[in-house]
C-alpha cells in the first residue's frame, strides 16, 4: 500500500480493535487477543510501511476533507511525528500485555470498557502524531482527553470522580481557553494552520504578541503539565497502573509535549524564536517546573505520586528543549520523548507490579522487597538510571543533547538546571532501589525469607522488556539523531 493510505489506515486502525473487542467481549482471552492483534498490525504498518519512507526523506501526506474554509483535516508524517507514532504503537503492545496481567491480577471490573477506551486513546495519539496542521492536532488532542476520562475514573469511586473532574477541567479548560484561541489567532495571522518547516509566523506576528501567542500554545497544551496547570497529573494517579503507564509514557503526556515541540518547530520556527528571543520566558517556566516538581517528588511517599511529579519534571525537559530554540535543543527534546517513554513506563510497570505482587503502595513499605522481587526492582533500577540520565541507558543521550542545546543557546543557567535536576532525580528515585535491595525487611513481614515471590509473569516481563529497551536505545541513539535532524533542515 502507498505510504499516504498507510497513514490514514494507521490513524483509524486502533478503532478496528474496538469492533473486535465488542464482538469478543464475552471471552476475555479472545478479547485481549483482538487488542494484541490490532496492536501488532498497527506497529507493523507504522514501522514497516511508513518509517522507511520517512527515514529516506519522504513526507507522506493524506488530505481527508476540508471541514471549514481554511481548516482541513489532513495528515503529514515528519520525523518527530514518526517517532511519536512508533513509541505510541510499540508501547501499546507492551502495555496491553501488562494490562492483561494487572487487570486480572487485581480483579478489576469493566475490562471491556477499559480496552475500548485504550484503543480510542491510541488512535488519538496516532492522529496527533501524524497531524498536518494545528486543527487536525486539536481534534485528536481533544479525542485523547475525552477517551482517557473513563480510564482515569475507572474505579468509579468518589475519589476517582473528583480526580476525573480535575483531569477534565484542567485539560479541557486549557485547550478551549488557550489552545483554541491560539489556533484561531494563528489562522487569522498566517491564513493557515499547516505545519511547515521553518514556521508560518515569520513576519506575521511580532514582538509581545509573539510571546503571548507562544504562551497560549504552551499553557493551552495542558497535557504538557507546565506549572501551574500540572495538578491533573498527580490527581490522575487514582487510575489503574496500566492507565498511568499509558498516560505517562505513551498517549497523553507525550501528546502534550509533542504538541509543544511541533508548534515551536513548525508553526513558529526555531529561527524566528531564536532571533526574537520570544521563548526566553518559556525556558524559565520550564526550568521552574523541572526543579519545583523534582522537589515535590522528594516529599512524596506514595510511589505513584512520586513518579507523577517526576514525570512533570521530565516533561519540562522537553519543553525546555523546545524553548531553547536551537537545533540540538529540539533534537534533544524529541529524543527525550522516546527515552523518557521507555524509562518512565518501566518505572510505572514496576510500581504496578509491586502493587499486585506485594500489595504495597508507599515507598516506606518497600524495605527488603527487592530481594523477593529482584526482576521488578532490577527493572526499576535500569528505568531510574535512564530517567537520571546515566549511561548505558538511552536517557543519557537525550540529556546530552539537551545540554548541548543549552550550550548552543548560551544559556548556562539552563545547563545548571539540567544537572541539578539529575541530582534531584537521584534523590527521589534511588531510595526505592536502595530500600528494596539493601534494607532489611520489616519484622512483621509474613513473607520474609520466602525466596522469590514476584508479581505475575505478565506484570514482570513488560518492565524488564522496556528496561532492556532503554539499553538498546542507548546504542541506537545515532539513528534517532539522524532521523530527527530532518526536522530542522
Amino acid at each position, binding site marked *: 500500500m502507498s505510504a499516504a493510505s498507510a497513514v490514514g489506515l494507521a490513524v483509524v486502525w486502533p478503532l478496528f480493535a474496538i469492533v473486535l473487542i465488542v464482538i469478543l467481549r464475552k471471552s476475555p482471552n479472545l478479547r485481549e487477543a483482538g487488542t494484541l492483534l490490532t496492536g501488532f498490525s498497527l506497529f507493523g504498518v507504522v514501522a514497516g510501511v511508513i518509517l522507511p519512507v520517512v527515514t529516506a526523506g519522504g513526507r507522506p501526506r493524506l488530505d481527508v476533507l476540508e471541514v*471549514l474554509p481554511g481548516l482541513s483535516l489532513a495528515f503529514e508524517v515528519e520525523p518527530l511525528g514518526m517517532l511519536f507514532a512508533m513509541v505510541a504503537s510499540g508501547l501499546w503492545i507492551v502495555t496491553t500485555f501488562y494490562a492483561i496481567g494487572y487487570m486480572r491480577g487485581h480483579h478489576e471490573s469493566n475490562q471491556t470498557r477499559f480496552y475500548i477506551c485504550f484503543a480510542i486513546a491510541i488512535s488519538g495519539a496516532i492522529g496527533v502524531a501524524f497531524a498536518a496542521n494545528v486543527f487536525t492536532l486539536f481534534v485528536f488532542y481533544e479525542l485523547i482527553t*475525552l477517551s482517557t476520562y473513563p480510564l482515569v475514573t475507572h474505579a468509579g469511586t468518589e475519589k476517582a470522580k473528583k480526580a476525573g473532574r480535575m483531569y477534565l477541567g484542567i485539560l479541557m479548560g486549557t485547550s*478551549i481557553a488557550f489552545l483554541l484561541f491560539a489556533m484561531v489567532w494563528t489562522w487569522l495571522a498566517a491564513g493557515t494552520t499547516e505545519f511547515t518547516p521553518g514556521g508560518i509566523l515569520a513576519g506575521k506576528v511580532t514582538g509581545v504578541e509573539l510571546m503571548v501567542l507562544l504562551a497560549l500554545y504552551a499553557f493551552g497544551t495542558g497535557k504538557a503539565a507546565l506549572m501551574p496547570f500540572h495538578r491533573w497529573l498527580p490527581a490522575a494517579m487514582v487510575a489503574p497502573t496500566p492507565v498511568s503507564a499509558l498516560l505517562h509514557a505513551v498517549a497523553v503526556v507525550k501528546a502534550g509535549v509533542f504538541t509543544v515541540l511541533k508548534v515551536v518547530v513548525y508553526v513558529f520556527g526555531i529561527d524566528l524564536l531564536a532571533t526574537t528571543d520570544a521563548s526566553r520566558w518559556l525556558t524559565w517556566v520550564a526550568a521552574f517546573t523541572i526543579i519545583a516538581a523534582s522537589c515535590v517528588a522528594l516529599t512524596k511517599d506514595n510511589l505513584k505520586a512520586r513518579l507523577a511529579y517526576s514525570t512533570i519534571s521530565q516533561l519540562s525537559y522537553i519543553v525546555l528543549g523546545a524553548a531553547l530554540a536551537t537545533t540540538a535543543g529540539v533534537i534533544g527534546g524529541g529524543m527525550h520523548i522516546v527515552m523518557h517513554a521507555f524509562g518512565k513506563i518501566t518505572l510505572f510497570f514496576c510500581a504496578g507490579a509491586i502493587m499486585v505482587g506485594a500489595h504495597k503502595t508507599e515507598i516506606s513499605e518497600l524495605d527488603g522487597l527487592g530481594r523477593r522481587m529482584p526482576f521488578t526492582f532490577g527493572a526499576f533500577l535500569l528505568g531510574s538510571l535512564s530517567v537520571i540520565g546515566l549511561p548505558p541507558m538511552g536517557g543519557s543521550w537525550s540529556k546530552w543533547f539537551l545540554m548541548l542545546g543549552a550550550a548552543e543557546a548560551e544559556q548556562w543557567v539552563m545547563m545548571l538546571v539540567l544537572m541539578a535536576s539529575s541530582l534531584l532525580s537521584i534523590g527521589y528515585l534511588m531510595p526505592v532501589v536502595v530500600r528494596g535491595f539493601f534494607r532489611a525487611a520489616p519484622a512483621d513481614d509474613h513473607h520474609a525469607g520466602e525466596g522469590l515471590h514476584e508479581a505475575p509473569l505478565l506484570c514482570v516481563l513488560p518492565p524488564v522488556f522496556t528496561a532492556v529497551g532503554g539499553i538498546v536505545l542507548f546504542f541506537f541513539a545515532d539513528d534517532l539523531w539522524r532521523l530527527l535532524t530532518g526536522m530542522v533542515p
Partner: protein
Amino acid sequence: MMDALWNLIGDDLAALQIAMPLLTATVCILVRRPMLAWGVAMFNAWGAVVNASILLHRVLTTGTISYAEGGWPVPWGIELRIDLLNALVLLVVTCICAVVLTAAPRALAAEVPEDKHYLFYAAYLLCMTGLAGMTVTGDAFNIFVFLEISSLASYALISQGPSPRALTSALQYLMMGTIGGTFILLGIGMLYMVTGTLNIVDMANQLGAVGPNRTVLVGMAFICVGAGIKLAVFPLHVWLPNAYTYAPAVVTAFLAATATKVAYYVLVRFIYSIFQVNFAFEVNRLDAVLIPVGIAAMFVGSLVAIFQDDLKRMLAYSSVAQIGYMVLGLGLANEHGLTGGLVHVFNHALMKCGLFLVLACLLVRVGSTKLAAFAGLGRRMPLTFAAFVLGGLSLIGVPMTVGFVSKWYLVLGALDAGMWPVAVLILLSSLLAVIYIWRVVEVGYFRTAADDAPEVSEAPFSMLLPTWVLIGATVVFGVWTSLSVGVASAAARMLLGGAS
C-alpha cells in the same frame, strides 16, 4: 402524474408552506382518532420538509423567489419572498417539526390524555403554520399576524403539560409574548407612518430616502425589544425557563428549536434588510446594546444552568446562553460574526432539539427529568445516554461537532471586529457548558440507580430514532459544513451588502 402535480403546485410552493399546515390542522380536528390525526400531521410535516428543500435548492440556483399572494401586484399586495436567509430558517423549522412529530406519539402518551391528542396535533400544526408564515413572508405586518398565530398555538401547547404550573407558565408566556408582539406591531406602525408601505423591500428603499428621523429610531427600538422578548434574550428571557420546564417534552423540543429561531430571524430581517447596517450600527450604535446583552446572556444562562436540578430547566437556561451567542453574532455585524449567528440557528436547533428529545425518552422510561433520574443511565439506557453525551459535547464546542463550527465563526467575527476580549469571553463561556453537561454525565456514569428503581429498558425505537437522527446530524454537519456554512455565509454577505 408527477408532472401534472408539479405543474399544478410548482409555482405555489411558498404559499403551500402556509396553506397546507393550516388545512391539515383542520383535518386533524375532524379526525378524532389519535394515530390517524398523527398520520395526517406526519404527511403534512414531511411534505413540508420536501417543500422547504425544493425552495432552498431553487434559491441557491435561481436566486430570490418572489410570490405575489392572490396575484395582487407587489408592493400593494402581500408578497412571499424567499431568499437565502429565510430558506435556511424554513428548512430548519420544517425539519425540526417533522422529526419531533415522529417521536411524538410515545412521548405524548406519557403526559397528555389520549383523548386530547388529536387537538394537540392540530395546535402543533397551527404553530407550524405561524412559524412557516413568519419565515416566508415579505410583508412586515404579515410577520406580526403569523407571529401571533404561532404564539397563540404555542400557549395552548405549553399549557398541556401535566403539572398545574404548565398553566401559569403558559399564562406568563402569554402576557410577555403579547406585550412583545404588540411592541413589534407598534414598531411596524411607526415604520408605516414614515414610509407608507408594509412591504419589506419597499420599506427598505423608502427608508433610504428618508433622512434622520426619530420615528424610525423609536420604531427600531420597539421592534428590537419586541423581538427580543419573543427571542428570550437576556434580560427579557424570564418566560422561557418556566415555559420550557412545564410544557410536555415534545413541545419543549419543538419550541426550543423553532420559536426562538424564527424570532431571531425576524430581528435579523428587520435590522439588516429594513434598517440596514449603516442606520442600525454606524449611526445608532445598536452593536453597543446587542454585544453586551449577548455576552451577558451567554454567562448568565450558563451560570444559572449549572445550579439547576431539573434537567429541562437546565437546558432551558442553556438555551438562553445559546441565544446570547446568536445575538452576539448579530451585533458584530461583520461577515464572520453574522455567519456564526446564522449557522448557529441551524446548529443549535439540531443540538437542543436532540437533547430535549433525550429528556423526552427519559421521561417516557424513567418518569422524571430531575438530575437524579439520570443515575446509572449509562448502563440502563446506554443509547439514550450516549446521545446526551454527544449532544453535550456539541454544546461544549468540541471540534468535529456543529457547536465548534458556530464558535469558530463567532470567535473569528469578534477578532475581525478587533474585540479580542469578546473572543476570550466566548471561549470562557464554553467552559461553563462543560460544567453543566459534565454534571449530568457524571451522574449517569458514576451513580448507580436506587435499589428500588424500576427496571427500565432502552427508549422506544420510535423516539430513539429521531433523537439519534438529530444527534447524528450534529456530528455530520460538524464535519460536512458546506451546506450550513455555505448558505449562512452567503446569506450574511447578502444581508451586509444591502437589501435582499
